[in-house]
């Protein structure tokens, strides 16, 4: 028989609230292992904080999404959104599952090429593409998605001066009835800018127009905007056939599908209010059957889903540094992982779950990180059982944007491991050390000497 868990004494104000038939208990099932590997073992082997990625979950997510779209449209291609998580190992899992790469900077482009993604299977998005990046991408036949006119002129200049031919698409933004309207990216549909850009491209024989791209936003909570976006893109697609006799290879509907994380403004949990991925897929694909093409001639549908494929495949294990009682009587828990590692906690209410058995009493708590900064708060309010120093917690749904947006601020960034399908654990990014941080630094000779 296991030893009973020690529970530190707590004094809780008796609070009856309104009568309900469910009582006041909170589900407090601890997460003691991830993919069959115990959290305790992980911390022993790799320390904490520790990012954990699950290979199995990534593959399952990608396969599920592919199945959902492929049973709704005959030609589907996913392109892994590098900015969501560009750890080599993570990208490789996606590439093994058949995904292309979607990059938004020269750095990401180079990273994809270094991993072995062929140029023609890289989609080059984003508002900033340097000339050197463009030349490289054009030469390697990458699919360049043009964001604005100045970029178009830049590409025309490059192709003419170097006598190259570029494979291009344009990004189109449009009103699909949601806020914020992402009109800062691409060419607007309603005011005719997109068509003007297309006209510029089709008359230029150095530019090979191959696709149309839109990306209506991020964490979109309704499927209908996608249907609207697809309808408008298909209109543009058909217009190109009618007026210019140009048949494009693909329609890129971008990403923006929500993950399981709950936004700060949301009252209900994400999985209770979000449409299913099937509904999103239905909205994206059904208008595509209205292109003027059919059967094998239909355009390829490209999807750049990021967070929906990776968020729940990532975990952050953290350790309790201490407990304290705030001035207003609220309980506060201090963890060794804060907003430096979990930038996404600025807008998501990440679930935080204890990694070991706890007592049954729970208390509304605030969760703070280790930084000596007031903003370092992971959760303003969360119901947690009593935790003690050196206990561990698992923060869920941290696969998207965390290991790309994390900061080396005050502390150094920790290790990232991947639990493989065979239950072995691989270190996929080592923790940073002083040398790594300081090696790019240059200390002028005259500043080296000091005596205190």
């Amino acid at each position: 028989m296991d030893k009973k868990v020690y529970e530190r004494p707590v004094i809780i104000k008796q609070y009856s609230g309104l009568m309900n038939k469910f009582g006041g208990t909170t589900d407090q099932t601890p997460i003691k292992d991830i993919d069959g590997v115990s959290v305790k073992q992980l911390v022993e082997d790799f320390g904490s904080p520790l990012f954990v990625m699950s290979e199995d979950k990534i593959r399952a997510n990608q396969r599920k999404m592919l199945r959902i779209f492929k049973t709704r449209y005959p030609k589907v291609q996913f392109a892994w959104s590098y900015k969501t998580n560009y750890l080599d190992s993570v990208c490789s899992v996606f590439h093994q599952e058949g995904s292309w790469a979607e990059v938004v900077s020269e750095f990401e482009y180079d990273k994809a090429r270094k991993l072995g993604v062929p140029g023609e299977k890289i989609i080059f998005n984003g508002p900033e593409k340097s000339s050197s990046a463009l030349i490289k991408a054009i030469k390697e036949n990458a699919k360049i998605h043009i964001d604005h006119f100045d970029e178009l002129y830049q590409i025309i200049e490059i192709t003419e001066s170097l006598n190259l031919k570029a494979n291009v698409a344009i990004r189109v933004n449009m009103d699909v009835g949601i806020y914020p309207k992402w009109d800062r990216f691409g060419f607007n549909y309603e005011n005719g800018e997109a068509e003007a850009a297309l006209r510029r491209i089709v008359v230029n024989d150095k530019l090979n127009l191959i696709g149309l791209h839109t990306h209506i936003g991020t964490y979109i909570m309704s499927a209908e905007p996608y249907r609207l976006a697809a309808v408008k893109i298909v209109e543009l697609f058909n217009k190109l056939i009618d007026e210019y006799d140009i048949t494009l290879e693909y329609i890129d509907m971008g990403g923006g599908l929500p993950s399981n994380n709950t936004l700060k403004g949301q009252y209900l949990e994400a999985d209770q209010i979000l449409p299913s991925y099937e509904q999103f897929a239905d909205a994206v694909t059904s208008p595509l059957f209205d292109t003027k093409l059919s059967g094998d001639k239909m355009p390829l549908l490209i999807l750049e889903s990021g967070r929906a494929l990776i968020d729940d495949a990532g975990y952050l294990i953290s350790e309790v540094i201490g407990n304290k009682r705030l001035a207003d009587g609220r309980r506060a828990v201090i963890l060794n992982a804060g907003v430096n590692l979990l930038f996404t906690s600025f807008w998501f209410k990440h679930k935080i779950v204890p990694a070991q058995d706890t007592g049954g009493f729970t208390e509304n708590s605030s969760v703070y990180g280790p930084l000596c900064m007031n903003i370092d708060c992971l959760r303003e309010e969360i119901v947690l059982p009593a935790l003690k120093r050196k206990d561990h917690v698992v923060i869920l749904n941290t696969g998207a944007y965390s290991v790309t947006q994390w900061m080396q601020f005050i502390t150094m960034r920790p290790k990232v491991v991947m639990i493989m399908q065979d239950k072995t654990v691989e270190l996929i990014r080592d923790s940073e050390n002083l040398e790594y941080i300081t090696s790019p630094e240059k200390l002028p000779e005259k500043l080296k000497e000091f005596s205190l």
Partner: protein
Amino acid sequence: MKLFIESIIFSYSQIFFSNRKWFGIVILAASFITPISGIFAFVGVIISSALALYLKFNKEKIRNGFYGFNGILFGAAIGYFFEITPFVVFLLVVFIIITFFISAGLEHLLHNLFNLPGLSLPFILTLYIFLIFATNYNDIFYASFLGESDFLKEYLHEILNSYFGAMSLILFQKTVLSGIIITAAILFFSRVMFLNTIIGFAVNYLFLHIFYQDVQSNVLILTSFNSILAAIALGGSLIIVSRKSFFLIAISILMVIVFTGFFSKLLVSHFLPVLVLPFNLIVLSIIYTLKFRQEQSDLVLLYFAPGSPEENIYYHSVRKARFERFKFLYPELPVLGEWKISQGIDGEFTHKDEWKYAWDFIIIGESGNEFENEGNSVEDYYCFASPVIAPLSGEVVRVIDKIEDNKVGEINVQNNWGNTIIVDHGQGLYSSLSHLKKNSIKVKKGDQVKKGDLIAQCGNSGRSPYPHLHFQFQLTNKLGDKTYMFPFSFLVERENTDNTFKSFDYPIKDKFVKNIETDSSLSEAFNFQLGSNYIFDCSINGKNFTEKWEVKADILNNIFIQSDNNSKAFLYPNEKAFYMSSYIGQKNSALYYFYMSSSSVPLGLSAKLTWNDPFPVSLTANSFVKYISEFLLHFGEQIKSSASFHFQKENEKKELSISSSLEVKGQGIFKLYRENSEGNVIVDKSGNIKEFTYKFRNHKFIATNKRVNYE
């Protein structure tokens, strides 16, 4: 000139239904053993072929000796029967011209009226005309056979003398020697044909002694000669060889004996010889009669350009295995992505009796279940509300769209087909899609749909306890009509991690199936457009040559690739799969190696896709075991050959390749015989066949596309 020479040689081969040059040359040589017959025969073929060329008959037919062989027989017969005078030679020339016209006309007539070959009927007709015409003259004398000695006869047994005598009489030769040469040539050309001559002779010998107490040697030779020819024609050259060939040969020989007796008496009053008349009439009438059987599954009449009996049976069995199931309509699965067959043909639940040719489709998720959560609501099922597409173009003839979807576990037996669409595909074929989701149908009665159009969503209406799509082909627009067995054209079937490409097949329960998603570079590479040209730099064992191909079409709309050495690979054009239906030509051309290494290629790429395709044994390299095994071909094929294919991962240049391993394997007592070879075809990313290689025994063949420039 080349055509002319070839036409002469092939005319000699044609007498024995052969298509080999060397065989023609040997027969030509054998015909000169009796020089006068040989010379006359040669005159006959030269005049016939020259005439055909001069009058611009079909060059291919001229080349194959189609118009020449009756001339040979006629010339040889005149040399055989008559004493030579200048006037006889003059008449010979005149009558060869007559023979030519009769044969060209009769050939056409028989072909168009009865779809029968002309055989040597033109020759025998002209000969009779000649013989009767010759009676107008007193100075045309029959040559005397008596007194001519044949030294070989002394050394051979009487039966052998009769056998070889009959063989030599085919060419109107008087010596046993030419019979021996002809027999040897046949043995090398075809074991089946050789065996047939023996069977023909032996059975005839046996039957003849039942019919007549005392068999005269000239009767024996005359019937033997007809029997042997009938055995050759019916036992493999015009009908595919099988066990039943023995029976057919025996029947034909009985008829030969009876008809020979009949014609001897009938024609004797006009002083006409019987010669090959019984053979012609019997073979033509038997072939014609066999056409009217209800089932043509055995004693199959030749339906393609004839080769040796061996080639015929090898070609036929491969053709049957590859194309028997092929149809002229190309339906695809009515769903997108990968679905599982939850109930197949002759299923355990509802696909029974008249409704047995149907399929139920469901989707399986990553966890291996068909639903998520508890599966208590239809929305939990992955297939629920998934799109259903038109399997083939056609007109929507029936739409039912107002039946409620059942709760899980319940069934609606009042409207057991549920919401249903029936599409008329023309040609009498209809498809019916049932249990669709209420209000999900996007088409209405009278709409024209194209293959792949979105028409509805999978649902749970009708007799459906859990969401699935019921699909069947039928022959009317009636709801719930009996099912019709019709295959899906091209699909990929998966079991665990094995993906197999299937053509015109019937998906099986529990297999996962999906349509072929075509790959642009593959489609481009295997799209052999009419009129396009290819040049390949080839090398085999260090010997280099170039070969040109051109894509052509013949009068029957067959599309084929023709190489500059006159080999042909026939194509079966289709947007989902590339098929070469057959290869005719030399076994050392680049086209031959191309056929061997890519006889079929699905035009959709998936890494672990494999497929199998048999190829005719006759296309494999010659071997002693193969020769020997062909003595037993009457009892079934002794050697099987098949190729298995798979796509290779892209190489560093992003080129994909199709790898094949070909196996020739002995059956039964030849079990130990086995030979392997390997092929590989590389397709570059811009859609060209860049290179192909073929390795067999110690040889390595490699061809690179000359048109495509590679750095």
